[in-house]
């Protein structure tokens, strides 16, 4: 009897989980489906789900009009560069906060987090003026630096949380064995915190890939990533939903695949911490 209850509960839980999963995934699925419709089918009422004349014309139109590969390459460089730079800076910072905290460490962590609460547009003009002065407008280097800075609080917080799970005695033992600070971080701490670092890297890569405020406002033609590519197909005066959906599908496809293949590491890192 007890077994039957457990099975029923399992089934119910599975159904609920799948329902929530499908609900969350539905907008993406709808975007993908719309990308294969004609513009007239895209706005059909009632909406067409699967039974319509599938077409690749929107993808052809997008390819003809835009240089997709340039946008993609810019996204890879900007998201990858900002994540890499962020981790290089954040690992020593999180190490110091986790293992040699001062009485102000908690305040610093909270202050870092509070910067995420500032509306980005509030600092648009100062940053724009700095970029003009430094010649960083519409450059990938400029965006790497900005995205690294805006994601830094999240990177530091995540790494700090993972590092706190590692027993400090292990690090002390390595020091007694003669390890330098560099060796301690590189050869003792990093391998133990690898799942945590991996999930931090993945999450920040996704955040940087999807970032749309700074990437739209600090670029023009040369450094524009895929967020600008999508924006170029949105229009309040004209029905271009099918083309917009095709552009969106092309923009999210790489990150969707990355998330799919790395979901195990991502979930493990986010839910269980570094060494559990």
């Amino acid at each position, binding site marked *: 009897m007890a077994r039957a209850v457990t099975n029923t509960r399992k089934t119910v839980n599975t159904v609920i989980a799948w329902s929530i999963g499908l609900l969350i995934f539905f907008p993406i699925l709808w975007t993908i489906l719309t990308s294969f419709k004609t*513009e*007239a089918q895209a*706005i*059909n*009422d009632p909406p067409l789900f699967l039974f319509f004349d599938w077409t690749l014309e929107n993808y052809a139109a997008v390819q003809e*009009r835009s240089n997709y590969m340039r946008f993609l390459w810019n996204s890879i460089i900007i998201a990858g560069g900002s994540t890499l730079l962020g981790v290089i800076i954040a690992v020593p910072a999180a190490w110091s906060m986790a293992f040699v905290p001062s009485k102000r460490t908690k305040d610093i962590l909270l202050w870092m987090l509070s910067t995420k609460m500032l509306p980005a547009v509030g600092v*648009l*003009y100062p940053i*724009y*003026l700095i970029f*003009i002065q430094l010649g960083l*407008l*519409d450059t990938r280097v400029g965006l790497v630096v900005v995205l690294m800075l805006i994601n830094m609080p999240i990177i530091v917080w995540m790494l700090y949380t993972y590092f706190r799970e590692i027993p400090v005695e292990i690090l002390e033992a390595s020091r007694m064995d003669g390890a330098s600070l560099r060796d301690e971080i590189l050869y003792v701490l990093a391998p133990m915190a690898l799942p945590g670092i991996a999930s931090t890297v993945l999450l920040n890569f996704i955040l940087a890939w999807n970032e749309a405020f700074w990437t*739209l*406002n600090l670029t*023009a*033609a*040369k450094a*524009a990533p895929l967020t*600008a590519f999508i*924006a*170029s*197909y*949105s*229009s*309040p*005066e*004209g*029905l*271009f939903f099918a083309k917009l959906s095709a552009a969106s599908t092309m923009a999210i496809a790489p990150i969707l695949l990355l998330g799919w293949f790395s979901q195990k590491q991502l979930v493990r890192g986010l839910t269980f911490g570094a060494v559990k």
Partner: protein
Amino acid sequence: MKTNLKSKIALGVVAGLAMSAVASAEELTIATVNNGDMIRMQGLTDDFTAKTGHTVEWVTLEENVLRQRVTTDITTKGGAFDIMTIGMYETPIWGSNGWLVPLDDLSEEYNAADILPAMAGGLSHDGTLFAAPFYGESSMIMYRTDLMEAAGMEMPDAPSWSFIAKAARAMTDRDAEINGICLRGKAGWGEGGAFITAMSNSFGARWFDEEWNAQFDTREWSDTLNFFVNMMTDAGPAGYATNGFNENLSLFQQGKCGMWIDATVAASFVTNPDDSTVADKVGFALAPDNGLGVRSNWLWAWALAIPAGTQKEAAAKEFIEWATSTGYIDLVAEKEGWANVPPGARTSLYENPDYQAVPFAQMTLDSILSADPNNSTVDPSPYVGVQFAAIPEFAGIATEVSQEFSAAYAGQQTVAEALEKAQALTNDAMEAAGYR
């Protein structure tokens, strides 16, 4: 030996000419909006490059994103763009601030006098043209001829609001999912805000009196909003409070609207048989009035302007001359047909017999000509603009006001409450900005 020397000299001359051509060729960065006409122009840029040697990098953005992007750049003198696509709202403000290069030295061949006077006026400051219209638009009535006939009514060329309300109610058939009229109710100064402002002009309302006091506490505004809400409740689509241009276009193309009053550029969409199920059943008329001497149509242009300080001013002017010329119109007509040429910018287009054959051409011209941005209200007002007031504060204020109006359309508050809030917030903002 002599021949050899001659060959070397000739080769040198050719190489020198080629080098000088390369040296004078520029790469222009142009910010623009995503709409059919602009995308068509991007596809034809090779013609410009072949004629001048200059190449073009396009930055295409959604209208609101573009507005924010180019405003940031021009106010900081960022220099990210050599040409910007801007509208009638920004041009006089930016021109008066000295942020744009005056276009008063365009070539004789360009024939600036051919630009429609209403467009030239709206894109000038103190008589100086600061942006060249790529295409212009007004608003007009697009209606279903079959439904109008079935309702036993006949649309006049210049109807009144009372006729429109009566026809809308007569054409409505809820069982057949046909709404008598579809209008913008969506919040946003360029969406529902533009429509209701243009409509209010024909009811004798205005945004400000001559001392910049808000006028939402007047009977004219109350009449406008109550008329709109009553008509839309009886004959409009469900959820009209969130409908903008695209939502209404979609409804009309699927045969679910008896009438639609919106941008004249929509005429080419609703008469295109590839997208519209009612393409052969569409008639056109001037936007309605109330017999007060002002109609409810707006005036707008997407225009090309050069930000002051660009290093490529000469090449930018060459591009503007190419893109807004009669030659460009001929090029589009040759490649894509007369129905697809950018409308509403040049007088000569409407004198062209080929274009006169396009069904909505004359009504578009009549609509444009009947809108006067310098005298848009029945009582005198201190601002220029039909569906907006050309002051920097307007976009922010009108967005908030239109949010209050949309809340009234959605039934979240009464019309009187919406007007009361609009009055207070407008006066507060104008006082803070130093107008009052």
